[in-house]
Structures are given as structure tokens and as C-alpha cells.
């Protein structure tokens, strides 16, 4: 599941005339240099996250690896935090946690949003109206405040952070998907399917959904960056991934609260976040250009 964007990016290019793999790849790289960069960044971070138990030099919560608040050195390339924990290990593990939070929340949210959007867009009528009114109510709410209230109700935990971010992105996804369905609905192939007596469920999921997939994937990629940022924001407000989990947001926040002037402590988790969001944005842009010209530049 975790490597999906990679498979997708390559898989979709399979529709172009068959060429030797290497050449196709090179063409892709030439055509989307920034997208390739983004892809490599994400791939790299994913590998780091997956291999965290293997490559992290220390346990995330091992205290006193080096003196507290050590700077950058041979033993601790990213320094240590105020408990003397190795920041390199924490940043590596942070990749695992922050990326899992992002992926699970966004994939869950996109799938749910897409299904609802498909139904809402295709069915129209009272179901559509109801869904739209509910969406209006939700959007009458500043998103962050909504998240805050929900997390107050559910309590802080890793799972709930995932849940809340996932819920947070659903309305946007529904709107985009619904819009796409509305324009897709009038295509001849849908008419044809209807004419041969296909059920609405079949039409939605066999005929329209595949045509929406590209769009959903593009949206998802961009949202992944947003999710990582949201996790950091929740941490700042004290409602993020609870300690002592090594999430990037939580670490930045710990640094801000304990020693605002000690730069390395917050620097590397911050770079982790920026790099992730950058990677997803670059990849998202390229995917958008490649897959769906209608969406170019929309966000």
C-alpha cells in the first residue's frame, strides 16, 4: 500500500506505445524532471520510514545517547534533544510515523470521499441535495476548529489523529469528485451502459469510477502533503500524536517549548516535514500534468 503512488505513476504510462522500459523511464524523467525529483524524495522517505528499525542507529527513546542538546557531530549527526535522545533516530522514526499518519488518513479519506462523491454526483436528486447540505454545514466551519473539537471528543492518540485528518479531507474530495462525475455522467459510454440495463451501482463503480481514478490519485498526492502539515499543526496545539512517539510535529513542538534558541533540535524534524510536503507537491504537479489536464494548477 505504501508504495502505491510509484506503481500508479509508472502503470499509467503503460498506455503509451510499448518501448523498452529504460527509454520510457528516461522519457518520463526528461519530461517531468521536477516530478521525478518529488517521486525520488518520497521514495527515499518511504524507504527510510520502512527501514527505520534497521537503519536508525539508536532506539527513539533511548536516553543519554550523547549529552543532552549536543550539536551536530560524528556520533549524532542531527544532534540530540534535551533528554539526550539521538535526533537522527527520531527523525528517521518520525518519517515512519508522519508518513503513516499521512498515508492512512489520506487514503482512507480519499476513498471515502470518492465513494460519496460518486454516489452524490451520479444519483443526483434528494440524496445529492442532502449530501451537499451536510457538506455546506461542515464547510461553514473552519477546518482546524472542526478538527480540534473532534479530537477533544475522541481524546489524543495516534489513531485519532489519523481519523481526524482523514475526516478533515473528505468534504473537499467529495466536491471535486462530484464535479467530475457530473461532467462524466453525460458521456456516451454512460448512456450506453444505461441503455443495456446496467444497475446504477454497476455504472458508478465499473464505468465512471475508473475514469475518476486519475483525478482521485492526483488529489490524494497533494493532500498527502497537507496531511503531514496538519499533523504538525495539531501537535503545536497540543492535540497531536501524544508523547513519547517521535512524530516530527511533536518534536518541533517539544523544541519550541523547551529551548526556542536551540536550532538543531527543531531544524531536522522541520526539514523532514518540508521535504515531505515538497516531494508530494512536486509529484502531484507532475501527475496532474500527466493525467488530467483539466486540473492543471487547481488546488
Amino acid at each position, binding site marked *: 500500500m505504501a508504495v502505491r503512488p510509484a506503481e500508479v505513476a509508472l502503470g499509467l504510462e503503460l498506455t503509451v506505445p510499448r518501448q523498452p522500459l529504460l527509454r520510457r523511464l528516461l522519457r518520463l524523467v526528461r519530461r517531468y524532471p521536477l516530478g521525478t525529483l518529488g517521486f525520488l524524495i518520497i521514495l527515499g522517505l518511504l524507504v527510510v520510514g520502512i527501514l527505520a528499525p534497521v537503519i536508525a542507529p539508536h532506539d527513539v527513546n533511548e536516553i543519554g545517547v550523547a549529552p543532552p542538546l549536543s550539536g551536530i557531530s560524528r556520533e549524532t549527526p542531527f544532534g540530540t534533544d534535551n533528554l539526550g535522545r539521538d535526533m537522527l533516530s527520531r527523525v528517521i522514526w518520525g518519517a515512519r510515523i508522519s508518513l503513516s499518519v499521512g498515508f492512512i488518513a489520506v487514503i482512507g479519506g480519499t476513498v471515502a470521499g470518492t465513494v460519496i462523491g460518486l454516489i452524490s454526483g451520479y444519483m443526483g436528486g434528494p440524496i445529492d441535495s442532502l449530501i451537499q*447540505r451536510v457538506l*455546506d*454545514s461542515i464547510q*461553514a*466551519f*473552519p477546518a482546524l*476548529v472542526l478538527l480540534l473539537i473532534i479530537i*477533544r*471528543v475522541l481524546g489524543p492518540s495516534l489513531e485519532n489523529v489519523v481519523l481526524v485528518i482523514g475526516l478533515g479531507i473528505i468534504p473537499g474530495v467529495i466536491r471535486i469528485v462530484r464535479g467530475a462525475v457530473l461532467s462524466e455522467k453525460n458521456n456516451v459510454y454512460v448512456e450506453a451502459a444505461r441503455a443495456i440495463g446496467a444497475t446504477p451501482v454497476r455504472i458508478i463503480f465499473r464505468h465512471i469510477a475508473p475514469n475518476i481514478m486519475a483525478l482521485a490519485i492526483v488529489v490524494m498526492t497533494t493532500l498527502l502533503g497537507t496531511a503531514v502539515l496538519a499533523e504538525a499543526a495539531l501537535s503545536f496545539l497540543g492535540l497531536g500524536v501524544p508523547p513519547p512517539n517521535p512524530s516530527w510535529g511533536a518534536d518541533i513542538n517539544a523544541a519550541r517549548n523547551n529551548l526556542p534558541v536551540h536550532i538543531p533540535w527543531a531544524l531536522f524534524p522541520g526539514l523532514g516535514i518540508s521535504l515531505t*510536503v515538497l516531494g508530494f507537491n512536486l509529484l502531484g504537479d507532475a501527475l496532474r500534468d500527466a493525467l488530467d489536464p483539466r486540473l492543471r494548477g487547481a488546488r
Partner: protein
Amino acid sequence: MQAFIIRRLLAGVVILFFLSIAVFLVLRVAPGDPALLRLGPQATAEQVAAERERLGLNDPLVVQYSRWMKGILTGDLGVSNFSGESVARSIRNRLPNTLELLIMTLVLTTVIGITAGVISAVWRDTPLDYAVRVVAVLGLSVPALWLATLVLLVPLQVWGYAPPIGRVVHFFDDPWGNLRQFLPAAVVLALGPAAAIMRLTRSSLLEVLRQDYIRTARAKGLGERLVIARHALRNAMIPPLTVLALQFSALLGGSVIIEQIFTLPGIGQYFFQAIFVKDFTVVQTLTLYTGVVVVLTILALDIAYAWLDPRIRYR
């Protein structure tokens, strides 16, 4: 048109009604007794009981809800459970700060975003375009709270400079002090949206520049500058402006962090603190209040479309 506005207003009222019930129930489902939160764990049972009674938490939910609604409908926004301060007064104190921050942010977003977008589109595929686009992607990638901390601490460490902190300097008392206080916050807040607007403007303008009428304009010998300024820009502006208007509601909540870091007591911070201490009245009322603002904004937006684009009909 009139019928449309009336219908939308009615729909808005229904939305707000559901919103009010939702927030009312959610707050009461959430664990944690507001009386205990106010008094702390060491309070005696008797003190907690007295506090609950004072806050009216022992009444049935229906009674609590109708009491709140009755207040709202008669223009009484209630008082904070925590401080006993009138919510209306707090909003009055805080709204100007939030509005000033939002307006500054929106202006910066528009100016930076659209200018950069136009530059990037007009000189597309030049180093300038790439530079603008890279900056934009970076702008989207930096966490605001991280950037805000740097904006606050770097000048402090280097020059010992800090903006006015802790007390709002009002614009009409001291315009310069006011700008020093709000501008850094607005810049940080504007960075993300400006990047988004830039990208949108760029793609929208590129799209328009491919249209036939632009080719016509060029063909009849108009200068490139005139073509873009007169013909292309106006049409290219619709999508970015839509997004911009929608940013308004997003910023209303998104400014919590920035208000907190730059110590600008605004609506976002008020919301956050109220949620933190489970101040029912404040959270409920503010929710409804922002709801009204957003519903009206969206309505205004729809009406503005009708003016901008006569093809849009209202049924």
C-alpha cells in the same frame, strides 16, 4: 435573482440550525466536566456541584439548548462559562485583530500570488518561471508554525529586534507599531495561499492565452502587454478570485497558530482557548457566528458570479 437570494438565505438558516445542534451535542458528548476543568481536580464535590448549577449543566439538554437559542435570537450571545465575560464583548475586542490580520493576509496573497502567477505565465518556461514556481512549491512546503518561530526568533538573535508583543497596537493610535505587529504574522500566513494562488493564476492565464479571441487580438496587431492586461487577465481572474474568497473561511480557523505565536488575540485564539477549557457558551456561539459569516460569504460570492458572468443563471 431575488427569489434565489431568499432561497439561499433560507437554506443558510437550515444549515445553521443543524450546525447549532451538532456543536451543541458534540460538546456535551465530549468527556470532561467543564465545572471540573475550571476548578481543577482538587475542588470539593460541593464546589463542583455549585459550579455545575451556576453553569446550568444540570438542566435537561432541551432546556439548555432552548436557553442558548433564545439568547442568540434576542441578540444576547451569552457569557463565557470560564470567565463570565460577555461573548459579544470578547468578539468585539478580538474581531478587529482577526479582520486586520485576514485583510492584510488576503491583500498580500492577492498581490504576491497574482503578480507571480502572471510573471510565471507570461515568461513561461524561462528561468524566471522556474524560479517563481520553485519558490511557490517551497512556500507550500514550509510548516507555518516553524516559519513563524523563525520570523520571531532570528531577528531577535541577530539584531535583538522583536515586534510589539502582548498588547495590540491599534492602527489609528500608532500605524507603524501596528504594522510591525501584524505584518510579520500576515506574511507567514499569506505564504501558503499566495503560492496556491500563483499556481492557479499561472495555469488559468495560460489556458486563456490559448483561446481564440486572444489570437484574434494578437492578430489585429495589439501589443502583447495590452493583450494580457486588457483581454486575458480579466477572464483568467475568475478561478483565483473564487479560491481567494474561500480562503477567508479557511483563514478564520487557520490563523489560530499564527495568532498564538505572534500574540494577536483574535477569534481563532479565542476559539482554541474555549475548546481547551470546554467553555460551552463560547464554542457554541462562535461556531454559529463563523457559520453565519461563511454562509453570507458564500452567498455574496454566488451573487458576485452572476454579475461577473451573465451566463450563470439562478434557478
